[in-house]
């Protein structure tokens, strides 16, 4: 059974955080802005200095190269960055499955030739989710994946993530401020307080 396990994780003022997320399970994070939700996600993928143990399937992150850990534990940051001019350059070789996702999110295959700078904020947010999924992570850490989307696109994004989670039996952490969304997508709910403690709550 795949499982993301976090023990005594500390970073800045946050923690210690204790958390176990089973494969196919989704938990939500909410809390006041500035409480450090993004920092916590960045600490889990080891992108910033932090203390504590994080492992996936009983394999500690220190046992593998940092790059391999991040290929496995995929983070979708709240703000997406693009380092090449064209959309296509940010994607690995695409399979049939990948192209289906593009269609589901409302893009045709021409999108790959687009210039990133011409895409709207919403388009970039959906493309950045596709970029993450096409790299094939086994854990999803999603930082407000639908913040800039209308209701229609939000529903499509939620559907695609649910399918991916189901298909790969991924543990998922979903940061959201939307109470309705949190109820739709997650089974357990946590609030990260200003003091850096994670509290389990009922929604």
């Amino acid at each position, binding site marked *: 059974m795949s499982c993301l396990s976090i023990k005594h994780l500390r970073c800045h003022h946050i923690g210690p955080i204790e958390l176990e997320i089973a494969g196919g399970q989704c938990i939500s994070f909410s809390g006041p802005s500035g409480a450090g939700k993004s920092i916590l996600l960045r600490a889990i*993928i*080891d*992108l*910033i*200095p932090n203390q504590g143990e994080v492992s996936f399937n009983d394999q500690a992150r220190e046992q593998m*190269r*940092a*790059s*391999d*850990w*991040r*290929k*496995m534990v*995929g*983070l979708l*940051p709240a*703000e*997406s*960055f*693009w*380092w090449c001019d064209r959309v296509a350059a940010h994607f690995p070789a695409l399979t049939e499955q990948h192209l289906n996702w593009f269609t589901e999110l409302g893009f045709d295959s021409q999108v790959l030739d687009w210039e990133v700078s011409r895409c709207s904020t919403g388009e970039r947010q959906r493309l950045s989710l596709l*970029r*993450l999924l096409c*790299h094939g992570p086994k854990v999803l850490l999603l930082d407000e994946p639908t913040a800039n989307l209308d209701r229609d696109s939000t529903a499509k994004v939620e559907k695609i993530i649910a399918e991916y989670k189901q298909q790969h039996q991924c543990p998922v952490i979903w940061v959201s401020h939307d109470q309705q969304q949190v109820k739709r997508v997650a089974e357990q709910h946590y609030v990260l307080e200003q003091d850096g403690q994670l509290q389990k709550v009922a929604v």
Partner: protein
Amino acid sequence: MNVIPLTALDLSVAAGLVVLLAILSIAMQLGVGKRIIIAAIRTTAQLMLIGLVLKTLFDRAHPAWVLLLAIVMLSVAGYEVMARQKRSFGGWWGYGLGTLSMFVSSFTIALFVLIAVINVDPWYKPQYAIPLLGMMLGNTMTGVALSLDRLTTGAYEKRGLIEAQLILGYEWRPAIAEIVRESVRVGLMPMINAMAAAGIVSLPGMMTGQILGGSPPMEAVKYQILIMFMIAAGTGFASMGAVWLGARHLFDDRLRLRLDRLKEGSS
């Protein structure tokens, strides 16, 4: 070789021109009048001092003295490289990175040219060793300072792009490759431009000096070509070395972009 000796009066006339420039700058409120005077005084004092040092050195050529002067020149160049960066590395890295790459590149090439190309005997003969090293260090310093400045500011300004790639599991090399290329290119530009313009737009200082000193123009030109190649190679290798080491040090062993290793931007 017979140079017409310059008297104190000759230099005073030239100094008068600089004073005139300074007075004009103050009148126009350019805010650089004082700095012109200070810089002119510095150049006089520093050059007089090095003149005395070289005179002493030429009288008793000993490798230890040559080495000592070389180390002093290197230390000052290392400090200049650090001071010219908006965000240099903190701690020993800030000073050591530029200094080390300049040391390896300039000293190796200067030694190689002294021993294998010009065949100076003895190899440390100060009349050759010190001016060669001085020209190498002066130019390498500019190149390394430009490169490192571009590297650290580039990493700071494009941290989002770099981290976006690290997040997807990329190694540090591809994540910072574009900035590395750009940094080395920036460091090499002055030297490439100098080589391209040499002889048409500008007559390089060393060649001019030799011709004034009475050397046949073709001899002066050959030396100038040698120096240009030395400087190009020295600047290029030093910039590449410094940028590669610097880029590596921007990431830690867990592949995190560590901008906290840079000092706050000042200038």
